């Protein structure tokens, strides 16, 4: 038994190796990966590396320019911008992860079931997805915030629900072709249950687009969460959140442009990194796709 398994393990490793070597060739994707890893580490060790308490106000240093004491300057309440950006990384990445968990956790099974059962199940699920898609972009999240109210939990739920149709449509497309493969027919022939066929045979073969989409959705989630924060509909103050920081700084843009510049830069660099990595993963995971 063990002998029989060895070559399969070998193939798995080589596929992973091939994927990594392809990804490694894409310098932009690697740059994205490095920056994302950096932000993750910064977020995790925030209390250790932040020079100040992110919520500690120091009115004499209000709108202070970058200095040795406040490396990125002080904000509209005299708080350390660098410390708030460091803690903000934690919030943004956490939102991204929860959003992917919510959107993927619901959208992926929806797409799989829709494709597998087809017929009326597929028709009704796809109309549901159509209705969700009818509220474009951030509009669905805004509508949910109007119902749920502001706050970190509600922001995560709202954006998470908004990404459900993206996953459902994507996975349905992949699963429709995978379910016609011979190994799925074989599994059905030997009497495997629908649950087993869907989650053991179809899902693993739809993982590539899901991984790529999740990376791009991280960018989307961070952008939307920051957008909601900017509109005053995101995380409640005084929690350090990049979008809210940007909103706080915009009133003082003329006298202290750095207050809105640095949080904006943090959002931009993080979103760009996830987009670069997402593009790189798509190239590396999909043999039919090559970079243009």
């Amino acid at each position, binding site marked *: 038994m063990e002998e029989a398994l060895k070559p399969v393990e070998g193939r798995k490793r080589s596929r992973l190796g091939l994927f990594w070597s392809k990804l490694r060739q894409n310098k932009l994707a690697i740059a994205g990966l490095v920056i994302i890893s950096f932000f993750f580490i910064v977020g995790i060790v925030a209390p250790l590396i932040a020079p100040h308490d992110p919520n500690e106000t120091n009115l004499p240093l209000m709108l202070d320019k970058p200095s040795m004491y406040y490396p990125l300057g002080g904000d509209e309440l005299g708080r350390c911008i660098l410390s708030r950006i460091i803690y903000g990384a934690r919030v943004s990445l956490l939102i991204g992860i929860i959003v992917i968990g919510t959107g993927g956790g619901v959208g992926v099974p929806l797409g799989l079931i829709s494709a597998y059962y087809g017929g009326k199940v597929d028709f009704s699920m796809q109309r549901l997805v159509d209705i969700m898609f009818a509220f474009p972009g*951030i509009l669905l999240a805004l509508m949910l915030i109007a119902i749920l109210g502001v706050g970190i939990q509600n922001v995560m739920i709202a954006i998470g629900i908004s990404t459900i149709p993206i996953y459902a449509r994507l996975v349905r497309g992949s699963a429709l072709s995978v379910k016609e493969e011979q190994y799925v027919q074989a599994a059905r022939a030997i009497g495997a249950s629908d649950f087993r066929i869907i989650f053991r045979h179809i899902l693993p073969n739809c993982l590539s687009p899901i991984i790529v989409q999740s990376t791009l959705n991280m960018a989307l989630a961070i952008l939307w969460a*920051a957008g909601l924060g900017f509109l005053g509909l995101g995380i409640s103050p005084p929690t350090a959140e990049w979008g809210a920081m940007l909103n706080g700084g915009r009133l003082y843009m003329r006298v202290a442009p750095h207050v809105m510049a640095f949080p904006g830069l943090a959002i931009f660099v993080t979103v760009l990194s996830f987009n670069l990595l997402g593009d790189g993963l798509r190239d590396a995971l999909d043999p039919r796709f090559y970079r243009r």
Partner: protein
Amino acid sequence: MTQYIIRRLIITLPVLLGVSVVVFALVRFIPGDPAQLLAGQGASADQIELVRARLGLDEPLIVQYFIFIGNLLQGDMGDSILTGLPVTAEIMSRLPNSLLLALVALLIASVVGTVAGIISGVKQYSMFDYSSTLAVLLAISVPVFWLALLVMLLFSLTLHWLPATGFESWRHLILPAFTLGAVVTALVARMARSSVLDVIQQDYVRTARAKGLSERLVILRHVLKNALIPIVTIIGMLSATLISGALFTEIVFAWPGIGRLLVEAILHRDYPVIQGVVLVYAVIFILVNLVVDISYTYIDPRIRYQ
């Protein structure tokens, strides 16, 4: 093709109905009395009762829904809690401003994006291609609200070339339209480049070259004509970006559009306005996609025969 259009219209109807159900349910999902929510926190008992009677809130849900649809078809979306004005009037006074901003941004994006994308595709791996690809990548990732602030800081507050906020003249339109257009331009350019690269590898382009046509004619007659088809299809997708982007652009530049109206309504819990604007956005989005899908059959004859 008529069959295709009819089929497409039939698919649109349940979606429109679904959207109306979601918007109807919006207020019903919120804990508390819908009549109180729609009349506003400071409303008197009489005002609350008036709303209750007008919307039939004592009736079963299904009856309430039909009253909602009936009112909607008569253009009655209720009154704004904040201003007391009819929601329809509030939306209609701002909708043209939003449409103007979106159309100018789309025009910028279509012209600049298509030209840049086509040059990029035709001259693949050139300096222009690399710079354009980089610009596209940056524009797709930049938060539109940050870009709006940077643009305002540079052109308005520092250089004093253009007004920062307001709506008085065409000069007020330039910065918001440029900001909104930048992100959309990037999406068009990316699609145009990819489309040109697809077409340029087709057999008919090789044939055109083989029969001795000049490169200019090959590009103009064979590549461009076919490459433009997929670009049209992304206009539907772009309308989603335009709507999202317009929310932020209108807020930053104090542009009196329905995006700003929606955000202000959410901040003040003005539910009749939230319902109205969300509905208008969704209907516009559905109709734009419907028109794009139908126009696609005219542009690409292959669709008609499928």
